[in-house]
């Protein structure tokens, strides 16, 4: 709307769009197509088949890894969402406390910190504490990784909300905590949900930090895939990847739908 010239359909625009999309998605499309390959060889097409999906659902180790990943993702995303939301509230709503800049800087450090460094430092910590590595160490590591993303998402929404809403709630008989719960929380729920989903997907596809903090018998799916691929790519991997892509696509779609819903909330004439 703002730039009608770009919306015009011209051969150049169509070519540019096709090339751009191909660059981004062709590898994924090939991967998805080959996941339905009947052949044992990854690069040779042998007709359509669901064989490798069947193989995956009979691969105990792979299923365990997938289950592990889902659990780690759900638990770490939940903890990260709670902590990240609290941090966002402290940063936007708190009085200008001493060390606020330092706090926000430290909060955002994991965003730019190379994962190898955070992974290694967490490993050293767990070793020093003599903590047996497994589900909880990966979960804690992923919480530290994803919390800052939740904070970013929630903070940007919180910052856009008028503080006088809470004052109005207080004026109308809410104590400060209830004012937050009744006036502000309903408005930031979509961004909290979006933050959770972001944290979940980040945890789901992390290899580096997980490889430092996981222990024997508690490999996550990406680690399992990675170690399989080193021995040669089986078409089963394609099948797993296709399912992971499908899951992430669903989560992302739901997340954007939720945040869009919250933005247009009230603009629809039908009050649900």
């Amino acid at each position, binding site marked *: 709307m703002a730039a009608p010239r770009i919306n015009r359909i011209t051969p150049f625009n169509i070519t540019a769009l096709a090339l751009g999309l191909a660059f981004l998605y062709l590898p994924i499309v090939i991967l998805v197509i080959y996941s339905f390959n009947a052949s044992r060889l990854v690069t040779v097409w042998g007709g359509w088949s669901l064989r490798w999906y069947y193989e995956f659902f009979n691969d105990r180790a792979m299923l365990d890894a997938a289950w592990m990943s889902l659990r780690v993702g759900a638990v770490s995303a939940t903890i990260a969402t709670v902590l990240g939301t609290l941090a966002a509230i402290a940063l936007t709503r708190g009085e200008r406390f001493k060390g606020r800049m330092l706090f926000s800087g430290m909060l955002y450090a994991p965003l730019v910190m190379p994962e190898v460094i955070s992974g290694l430092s967490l490993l050293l910590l767990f070793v020093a504490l003599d903590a047996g590595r497994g589900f909880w160490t990966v979960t804690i590591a992923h919480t530290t990784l994803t919390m800052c993303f939740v904070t970013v998402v929630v903070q940007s929404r919180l910052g856009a909300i*008028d503080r*006088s809403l809470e004052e109005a709630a*207080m*004026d109308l008989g809410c104590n400060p905590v209830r004012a937050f719960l009744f006036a502000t929380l*309903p408005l930031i729920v979509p961004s909290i949900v979006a933050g959770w989903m972001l944290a979940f997907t980040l945890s789901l596809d992390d290899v580096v930090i997980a490889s430092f903090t996981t222990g024997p018998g508690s490999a996550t799916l990406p680690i399992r895939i990675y170690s399989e691929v080193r021995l040669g790519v089986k078409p089963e991997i394609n099948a797993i990847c296709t399912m992971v892509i499908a899951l992430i696509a669903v989560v992302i779609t739901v997340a954007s739908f939720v945040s869009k819903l919250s933005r247009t909330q009230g603009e629809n004439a039908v*009050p649900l």
Partner: protein
Amino acid sequence: MTEEQSSSEVSAEPDAPESPAIEPAKPHAVAVAAASSEPQPEPDMPLLRIEGVVKKFGNFRAVDGVSLDIRAGEFFALLGPSGCGKTTLLRMLAGFEIPDEGRILLNGRDIAPVLPHERPVNMMFQNYALFPHLSVRDNIAFGLKRAGMARADINTRVAEMVALVKLEGMEKRKPDQLSGGQRQRVALARSLARRPQVLLLDEPLAALDKKLRESTQHELMELQNRLGMTFIVVTHDQDEAMTMASRIGVMDAGRLEQVATPRDLYETPTSRWIAEFVGDVNLFEGQVGASEGGRLAVSTRDGGTVYVAEPRTPPARTAVSVAIRPEKVKLSRRAPVAEGSGGRAFNCLEGVITEVSYLGGLTTYKVKLDSGAVVRSSMANTTRIVDAYSVSQRVVVWFTPDDCLVLEQ
């Protein structure tokens, strides 16, 4: 209009014209009861007493020693330019800011330790602060639910409020499906729903367009009159304050400069700043000269002498300003014939018209006097065919000593 307004000041007793609507609201009954151990307020105690209140933000004194009494049933306006501290004062009444010094007494009780949600005071916010996720109905019911009112009572009260602000049929809408004027009404209904003892309104009409603002001014006045509630409105718009309020407190730089009825504020401002802030004014700077027969002669800087009806006799040579409102300055082709008291019945000055602005109801003229000073005059166009003056015409500018005001610097 303003005369009627100023006369409503007479209803000073705390419980003069009470309609059922201002019975102490249930939610506040708790807060009031908690204070019942304290001595009952004296009968002549104002509803709200502000005593030497100071609010500092860092080194900046946003509110600097304000004392003010507001009686029950008043429509009080706090008027001042932006940044004068009027909103800060209002927020202290609501409980969002704590005074650094001084006390705020409501019904004789210091409300400093009372948190905003426990004060029998409600506020209408400048940007309305409607809850965007709640419908009109739920916005209005918000404060009632928090007070633990029964569902049936809430429904009755909401219906009453919706009718009061004429929003029937809009109950299910969300705030962003409403026009600015409708939102303003929802905010008003929401803040009135708990039947506060005092309603605070922060620039209630600032976000409305001119036409709507005028009709809403009258609705607010009518509503206040009907409910008999005490309204304190903050505004930077002097017309708004003059139209609505029974009394106006003018603030500047954190201080309360003058508290008066709209008429007194306009006709007898206590300082040059107020004279210039409220309405238009011509000022002649000069020194006090002789005084005789109730007429004080002020020799103005540009050589002339202006006679002023002034009962006080400030010491000679005091630097003063003589203020005269443009509508009290008349133009004519010849000097008016004085009856009786010789040359002192009128102040007559001569000059040339430099600017004519026709505004429909009135026409304003700028006249450059022979002394060099510029005087503004506005004259009502009371007839269709006016023998108007035009630019570069030579005229006599005259005004009576009674219409002049001496303001010390």
